[in-house]
């Protein structure tokens, strides 16, 4: 059972470089052959200061946190077997390029419990990860909703 006092609490922090290889891998993995994700000249010709990060670059935080998210879910007091990743969103606050260093701080921003349609209480936990670059600017906010179905 989740403790409602976790709202506002920092869950974890991550430091990660924006790597050229990862940007290319992500673009290729989703079948995007836009040269801005692999060729610095093409990126500059398109108006970028360097190779831009993939819009879903923050998914690589999984590599850098050094633990998987199941542990985080358990520490929140949720039952991993009943938890779904329901929603994800990204607010793009500033440019992110290959070579940048990001610092992400993940917090619980909301916990809501409601009666599920099939009986049993459903718990929705909202997480927000704020990413700051090496210059101290917030460049990205990621929000995730975890849904724990009723037992």
């Amino acid at each position, binding site marked *: 059972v989740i403790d409602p006092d976790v709202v506002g609490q920092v869950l974890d922090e991550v430091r990660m470089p924006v790597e050229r290889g*990862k940007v290319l*891998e*992500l*673009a*290729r*993995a*989703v*079948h*995007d052959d*836009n040269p*801005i994700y692999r060729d610095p000249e093409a990126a500059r*010709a*398109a*108006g*970028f200061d360097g190779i*831009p990060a*993939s*819009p*879903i670059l923050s*998914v*690589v935080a*999984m*590599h850098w946190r050094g633990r998987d998210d199941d542990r985080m879910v358990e520490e929140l007091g949720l039952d991993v077997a009943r938890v*779904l*990743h*329901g*929603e*994800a*969103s*990204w*607010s*793009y*606050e*500033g*440019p992110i390029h290959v070579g940048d260093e990001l610092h992400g701080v993940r917090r619980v921003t909301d916990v809501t419990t409601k009666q599920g349609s099939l009986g049993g209480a459903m718990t929705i936990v909202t997480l927000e990860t704020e990413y700051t670059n090496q210059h101290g600017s917030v460049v990205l906010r990621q*929000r995730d909703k975890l849904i724990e179905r009723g037992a």
Partner: protein
Amino acid sequence: MSTSQALPELAPGAELPQRELGPLTEGDFVRFAGASGDFNPLHYDESFVTDAGYPGLFAMGLFPCGALAHYLAGHVGQTSVREFGVRFTALVYEGDTLTLSARVASVDEDEASLELAATRQTGEMAIRGFARVALASEPGR
């Protein structure tokens, strides 16, 4: 950015050209696992998946989500996208072909709100997406 790219007219009701992705293979899931770091065996280990009671391998939700994010960025210019989000509504299985689509729901002063979808060949929506896109290019983004 991007002065070199002709941005589409983002008027209410306008649709971006659809894109088909697939048929998706185990290789697609493995490639995304390597790129993202999500090595949950549900996405590449056939016997693990069937033991867990699923009909077959399925994609990590962030794979079709990422495809939709890149599809949007490719059409409107990455620096125009202020916000992009998804709701994971159905699983995407090996062999599926997804149709990526986007439609302008509304336009206000300086941004357009878009509704996006990644839809399976069955007609089932796997990802329901939304985005806020700046109407003028924003170099600081």
